[in-house]
């Protein structure tokens, strides 16, 4: 970061990377979305509610949510082994738990809603970008939802709290805090932290991340409107 507070990719400390979001990009899926979040390129596809396999996973009271976050072997600098890593399994779990509070599956007992996320290119903050795409893909699939889930990270780079940490800042920076937020219900549904923050930096970092989530929410709304309303307006 230089003395004017301009970051390595030319952004200000409170600026998001460029985000483009498109809804309904996969013909065979019940709902889908494609997001470009900085250099992240991520697809999300939703299938369901449909029958659960294996059957013992089914819940007779409500539908279940499953999530697979996967990175393509060519998505990172060094080829990634295509088998799911421990990191991907953990991220799949936290993404599922971040989406779960938003979806209403009580009317779909014994079924599953599958969320498949493919990271075609990764650039830091991929779990947040993946959540942003998955959340509007769920809406595109017509799954009843309480709220949108909008996600964005904040972090500490060169002793400053910054919004939306990119790959380079994540590696060189002091802390990275991915956050997912339901903007209308005011609930944090995903929060992780790697790195050291004082209690006051922690507060500022969380508030900064939530500010980012609110900006992402507007982009998600626009993307949905573009598909469902002519000219993007009601």
């Amino acid at each position, binding site marked *: 970061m230089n003395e004017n507070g301009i970051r390595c990719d030319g952004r200000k400390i409170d600026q998001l990377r460029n985000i483009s979001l498109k809804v309904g990009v996969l013909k065979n899926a019940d709902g889908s979305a494609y997001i470009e979040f900085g250099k992240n390129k991520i697809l999300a596809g939703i299938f369901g509610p449909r029958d659960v396999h294996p059957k013992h996973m089914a819940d007779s009271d409500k539908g279940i949510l499953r999530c697979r976050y996967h990175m393509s072997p060519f998505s990172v600098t060094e080829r990634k082994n295509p088998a799911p890593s421990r990191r991907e399994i953990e991220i799949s779990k936290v993404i599922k738990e971040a989406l779960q*509070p938003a979806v209403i599956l009580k009317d779909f007992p014994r079924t599953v809603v599958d969320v498949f996320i493919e990271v075609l290119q990764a650039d830091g903050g991929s779990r947040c970008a993946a959540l942003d795409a998955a959340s509007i893909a769920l809406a595109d699939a017509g799954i009843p939802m309480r709220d949108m889930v909008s996600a964005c990270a904040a972090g500490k780079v060169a002793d400053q709290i910054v919004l939306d940490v990119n790959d380079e800042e994540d590696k060189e920076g002091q802390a990275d805090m991915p956050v997912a937020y339901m903007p209308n219900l*005011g*609930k944090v549904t995903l929060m992780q932290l790697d790195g050291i923050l*004082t209690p006051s930096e922690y507060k500022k970092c*969380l*508030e900064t991340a939530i500010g980012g989530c609110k900006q992402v929410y507007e982009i998600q709304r626009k993307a949905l409107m573009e598909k469902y309303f002519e000219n993007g307006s009601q």
Partner: protein
Amino acid sequence: MTSSVIIEQLKRERILDLLKEGKRLDGRGLYDQRTLTIETGIIPKADGSARARLGDTEIVTGVKIQPDKPFPDLGDKGILICTAEILPLADPGAEPGPPNEEVIELARVVDRGIRETEMVDLKQLVLKKDKSVIGIFIDSSVINTDGNLFDTCSYASVAALLSCTVPKYEIKEDVPALVEGQRSKPPIKTIPVSVTMARIGEHIVVDPTADEEACMNARITITTNSEGNICAIQKGGNDGFAVEQLFKCAEIAISVGTKIRKRLEQLM
């Protein structure tokens, strides 16, 4: 099957009713942990070991230290890896086989706490830059489960690390060779303490039991270092937290963490 569901439902209602009066099923205050016992040196063949009991949750951790190749992009640092396994004897629902997502999350959260606080100065564990380093392997076995595996596993792992000794290796003809009889204390910089809290309704409780976890809405684990800073966080569970609750949880994690850290410091 049916009868156990009814018991769960009754227990759940009891837990929720008691919380309204600020009480818990086992008589603890909302921010009290269960009794913690830590024994170290229980496995002499390991380079460090500990057994931690938090209530009825019990975990044994062993530390093994051996030379290894560094990670490709981290040639100037030693290796530190945490793993965890819920043994099939720990719980009627536990099964042998590859780790499921809960176990992977457990190991990664414990690992993150130790790594992100920079508890061990990994730069002091290099034998030959980019070629050979000391690897510290921290393996935890869950012996009995009654909720809050995160904190129990973290305390057992930190205790095993604090009480371990590092064998000496020297590079001879490009390969690391053990120097017999020379062991040293590990390069410890700070003591991470993880504190796990559950949100049940609008109440935050510290150190949830298995029964409390069964009726929690969401969970959060916050790890602090010796300076009282926050170094690692993991939110879990199928619901969220209000922002104010997250601020409160950080305060609780710092104050509860201070007490636990005093216990762990005595092991050094």
